């Protein structure tokens, strides 16, 4: 459904995207993970044809984005990162406007707006100005505005930022329903849990390059990771990753240090934990806590990029 072939984008001397290629199948929920400035929004802007790539090509449903821009825009819906709504208009006025702008005929628009408001549980507040809505309610209208023209492909650029936990769960349910309806979804997020919960496949992007891609299981397998030791040290510890890796080379695969937290990949974390703690104690490193964690997306991301996702 979405084919990105070696797209690059330069902003002056800054390379936002560097020969990025990826394919998303019809009906697939694809999440692109990356830290701030990794190129996620630029990628969405290029796919949705508001930014021209410096090189490379994008195809959506067999249509070339540089040639068939108008047709592509009818097929896609974009939920932007910002709450891009008119604050001084009511929810119903906003939805009517975005529906008309996306080409929904007047004869069906009223029904679709009503349906969307009921679906999002905002029908009773439909005549209130957006400015009077809570953050979660605004997010829901922000999503609804991209659905009215029933696009085949949905691009969602961090659509749950700043949302309260209750609304977040409600929003996940909306995304899952959309996925079940067969929509192709291209999703970017900082939130590992939602990506793990919602995605069929995950791509990890850093410095404009796709550094890993696949299902969560396959990403784990790519890194031969099962379990990880997470050890928190006292603040003034000057430990280096080399110290552990060189002291216990037979046991440790890799060590990452972030804010006095050690992420240690071993072949058998549960078994090796005692030996590692003894070593740290012997070298006067004060341990605050230690736990064995099953490998999750956050650890994979850290392993691949060397940094936490929210950095």
């Amino acid at each position, binding site marked *: 459904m979405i084919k990105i072939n070696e797209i690059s984008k330069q902003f002056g001397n800054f390379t936002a995207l560097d020969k990025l290629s990826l394919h998303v199948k019809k009906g697939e929920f694809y999440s692109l993970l990356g830290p701030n400035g990794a190129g996620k929004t630029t990628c969405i*802007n290029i796919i*949705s044809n*508001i*930014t021209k790539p410096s090189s490379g090509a994008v195809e959506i449903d067999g249509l070339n984005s540089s040639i068939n821009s*108008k047709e592509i*825009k*009818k097929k*896609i819906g*974009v939920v*932007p*990162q*910002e*709450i*891009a*709504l*008119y*604050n*001084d*208009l009511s929810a119903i*006025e906003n939805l009517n*406007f*975005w529906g*008309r*702008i*996306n*080409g929904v005929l007047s004869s069906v628009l009223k029904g679709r707006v009503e349906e969307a408001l009921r679906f999002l549980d905002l029908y009773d507040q439909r005549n209130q100005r957006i400015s009077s809505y809570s953050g979660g309610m605004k997010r829901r209208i922000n999503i609804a*505005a991209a659905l009215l023209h029933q696009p085949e492909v949905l691009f969602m650029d961090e659509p749950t930022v700043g949302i309260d936990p209750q609304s977040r769960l409600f929003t996940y349910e909306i995304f899952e329903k959309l996925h079940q309806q067969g929509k192709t979804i291209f999703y970017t997020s900082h939130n590992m849990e939602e990506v793990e919960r919602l995605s069929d496949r995950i791509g990890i992007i850093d410095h404009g390059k796709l550094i890993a891609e696949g299902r969560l299981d396959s990403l784990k397998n790519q890194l031969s990771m099962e379990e990880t030791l997470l050890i928190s040290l006292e603040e003034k510890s000057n430990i280096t990753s080399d110290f552990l890796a060189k002291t216990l080379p037979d046991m440790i695969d890799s060590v990452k240090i972030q804010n006095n937290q050690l992420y240690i990949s071993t072949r058998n974390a549960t078994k090796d934990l005692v030996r590692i703690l003894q070593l740290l104690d012997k070298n006067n490193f004060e341990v605050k806590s230690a736990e064995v964690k099953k490998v999750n997306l956050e650890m994979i991301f850290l392993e691949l990029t060397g940094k936490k996702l929210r950095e």
Partner: protein
Amino acid sequence: MIASLIRKDILQAFKDKKGMALSFILPIVLIALFSMVYGSFGGGMEDKPQDLVFCDEDSTAISQQLKEELHAEKGLRLIFRQLEEGKKLVLDGEVTSMLLVGKGFADSIAAGGGAPLEFFYDESKEMEMGLTQGALLSVLMPFLGEQSSKGQVHSFIDEKYANELPEDIIDEIHADIDKQFSTDNNETSVEKTTLKSTALSVKEDMPWGLIQAFAGTSVMMLLFSITGMGSSIIKERDTGTLKRLLYSPVQPWQIITAKLASGFIFAIIQMVILVLFVWLAFQLDIFRNFTSLVLLVIGTAFAASGFGILIAAISKSQKQVESLSLIIILVMSALGGSMIPLFLFPEFLRNVAMFTINFWAIDGFYDNLGRDVGMITQLVNVGMLFLFGAITTSFAVFIFTKRLARDF
């Protein structure tokens, strides 16, 4: 698409209560206020008598006669003071001007020489001083002329015939001369030569003050409200709705065209309401050249909407739009005649004024509502406004589309 964008912009504009007050209530209040100031109703400045301190140091029959004649002048209200006291009143700003009748006034006139008269005025009130001076001269010139002529004839008789004719005959001649110059003797008096002034206007009592207030204020306020509306482009960029529009099938040219069109429609609504206001509240005759009035309103609205969008297109932030528009509109309004009537400007500034929207719109409204200049002359103003609109619109579209390509 464009219709949906226009409908949204107009809806947003009408939901902005502050904007509505600035666009409609404020201009109405200002027009009413300025029309009073410019004197269209409640009596003009010319009708109000001007205070004048009269200081008589001569205290003769002639100076007394001058005092009485000035007292009879409707445009003046005399206040009698000594010299120093009178000067203080002028210096303190309580009275605009003072006339000093110096010692030897009567003798100088009798001798046919220059009269010792001095006029003092408050430098900060030159406009009012002009009105006082006008009323004063209308009395003073004929009075001095008459007195001087009479004095010269008396002197001539004395010099020429004093030694040749008996004294009683000479006295009789002097008495006859006085009789001839006397204003009481209508049959034989010398007729005074005065300049008769007649105001030429299409109709009597044309409310020029109201026309100036309406034209000046409405154009200035129109520019402010349309610039405010145009600045919604910046707001849309900042809130992300502009980007969201670009994600949709809408083209950039459609976005800017819709902004122009909604600004234009709003400007038309604002102008129509203000025209209706001056018609209903002040009975200003708006139907005498109605077709050209409609064209003028359209032209002014087009020029204002182009200007508003151009300011928004060249600005980088909401704050920049506000400060830039404030400076440009105030300068244009001052130069173009919105604040001060153009006849008070030196010629150089009047030429500069031609580069403002205000000038062509105000001049157009003067032609349309007050003068009787014919369709062709009025169309020149309308044409100039359309030219302004076309130039600003072209620049705005060019800059906006270029900026979009750069920003995204």
